[in-house]
């Protein structure tokens, strides 16, 4: 299949439909509107349903109902809307339902702004909702990766029976890049959803989708099961890209849009004789801790580069576990870090690291 030029937000929709998603529930918010608009156009042509809910709270609960009916279902929003969805997300995680949630992140806190940001890292990886749950979180850095991960997200969600989140930002959502839609083949062996509430037909005992466990031992049973699942996801699903690591004097850690800027920084600094490596988490949870075991001995420091004020840095510190000093450079939503600013910070750090 040839390449097509598409906007990020629409590419997510196209990839989802190719992955068998037929239901979408959303609520308007910038900068992700092209995605629900695309779904409202395309799903009816594919025997699917697009529904604009009265709020993000309702949208995520519609996702709960649809997912528990056995459907492949998706919702998308941007930061304040994802904040509202947290109630539904913890219920979906607890009920072990598969779905895909897209967050095209904008700057916060509060109403914030509509420009690209990465300030929802904690929200995505720490669970904005109540209880001990995790989301599998993908953070693509280009549109090809975005569509590949979107398709994969539906399979992973079904396989692990867990909500999967795709984290992008306004830049990923709004920019156009050539993409190839590959034939969708699941990397998992997926089984029938015999747990779904599809009506007993008088042929089986009722299926119950529930998140209430008044008996603490039963609740702990659920939590043990969830933790086993998260352990499995942790060992199977952590993904990252390691770039220019050989002889790196410093390794920067950046994901999504920011990682693209860091790659330019690396090229510029190479010309100046400074070797900088990059660890780019592709999954934010599970965080690719193994990447930090292969850092060359030439490396004297790590630096987390974010469009937020030091969120991922916590995971960088956990992953490096005191082996190297961890520095930080971050800007607020919309104030996209410039290569020059990052270069200056790198020089400052390696000057001190000598």
């Amino acid at each position, binding site marked *: 299949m040839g390449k097509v030029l598409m906007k990020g937000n629409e590419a997510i929709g196209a990839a989802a439909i190719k992955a068998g998603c037929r239901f979408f529930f959303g609520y308007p918010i910038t900068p992700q509107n092209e995605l629900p608009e695309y779904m409202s156009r395309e799903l009816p042509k594919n025997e699917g349903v697009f529904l604009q809910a*009265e709020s993000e709270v309702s949208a995520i609960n519609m996702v709960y109902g*649809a997912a528990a009916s056995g459907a492949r279902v998706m919702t998308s929003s941007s930061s304040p809307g994802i904040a509202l969805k947290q109630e539904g997300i913890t*219920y979906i995680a607890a009920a072990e339902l598969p779905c895909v949630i897209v967050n095209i992140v904008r700057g916060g806190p509060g109403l914030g702004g509509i420009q690209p940001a990465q300030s929802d890292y904690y929200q995505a990886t720490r669970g904005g909702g109540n209880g001990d749950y995790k989301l599998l979180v993908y953070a693509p850095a280009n549109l090809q990766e975005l569509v590949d991960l979107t398709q994969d997200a539906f399979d992973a969600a079904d396989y692990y029976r867990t909500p999967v989140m795709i984290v992008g930002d306004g830049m990923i959502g709004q920019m156009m890049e050539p993409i190839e839609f590959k034939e969708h083949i699941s990397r998992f062996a997926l089984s029938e959803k015999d747990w779904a*509430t599809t009506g007993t037909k008088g042929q089986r005992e009722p*299926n119950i*989708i529930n998140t209430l466990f008044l008996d603490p031992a039963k609740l702990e049973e659920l939590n043990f099961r969830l933790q086993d699942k998260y352990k499995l996801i942790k060992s199977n699903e952590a993904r990252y890209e390691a770039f220019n690591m050989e002889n790196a004097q410093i390794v920067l850690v950046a994901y999504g849009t920011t990682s693209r800027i860091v790659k330019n920084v690396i090229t510029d600094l190479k010309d100046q004789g400074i070797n900088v490596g990059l660890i780019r988490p592709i999954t934010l949870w599970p965080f690719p801790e193994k990447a930090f075991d292969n850092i060359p001995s030439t490396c004297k420091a790590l630096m987390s580069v974010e469009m937020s004020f030091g969120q991922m840095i916590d995971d960088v510190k956990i992953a490096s576990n005191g082996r190297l000093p961890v520095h930080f450079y971050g800007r607020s939503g919309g104030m996209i870090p410039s290569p020059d600013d990052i270069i200056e910070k790198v020089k400052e750090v390696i000057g001190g690291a000598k």
Partner: protein
Amino acid sequence: MAIVFQKTKGLTDKETHYCPGCTHGIIHRLTAEVLEELNVLGDTIGVAPVGCSVLAYDYFNCDVQQAAHGRAPAVATGIKRVQPDKVVFTYQGDGDLASIGTAEIVHAAHRGEKITTIFVNNAIYGMTGGQMAPTTLIGQKATTSPYGRTAEHAGMPLRVCEMLATIEGSVFVERVSVDTPANVRKAKKAIMKAFQCQIEGRGFSIVEVLSTCPVNWGMTPVDSITWLQNNMIPYYPLGNFRKPEEDK
């Protein structure tokens, strides 16, 4: 020997946890009987609320999803949009539906969502121990209105049927009570009609059932029924507020 009375197939064998004299049980039974009589139990998906009836998922003999507090109509929407030929109902209390879930119920009605809602109005938050609900009557004492509800402080009690009847997507809206055998029969008829409207694909249907909470009202079951008759029915008039054209 002729069988004159037996358990409905619409309920499981689980013993309910409802307090003695609580009318949740009667309302469960009526709903279950209707589903059995319509022969749709195997094609029905129920949605349980957060409230005393959260455990409805253990009692109704059909597939059930338990929803977050107030969100049952949104969950039911998700189910119905995926499975348009299944029967989908929500069972919700007045805290669930008339307080935290007002947006969800109003917009399910507004979209004409082809679901049925059984709305149990007991004028109080039962499960959490008797706090004031939007439906608590003026002068009624609750744990968070210890001096009795006043209109000045908390507004007038919310009449849900009257409100939802103004919405074009609502096709069947009726308020019933289960305080007397005659009213129990009327309640069942309304529930039957509501489900029929759904099955015929007409739109949103709701039956509000006035119900007792002897425990949190601090009364005997018998006194509770009398209190309901003397206080609730005058403010929450029984009757139909909306039905399909040809039935008018």
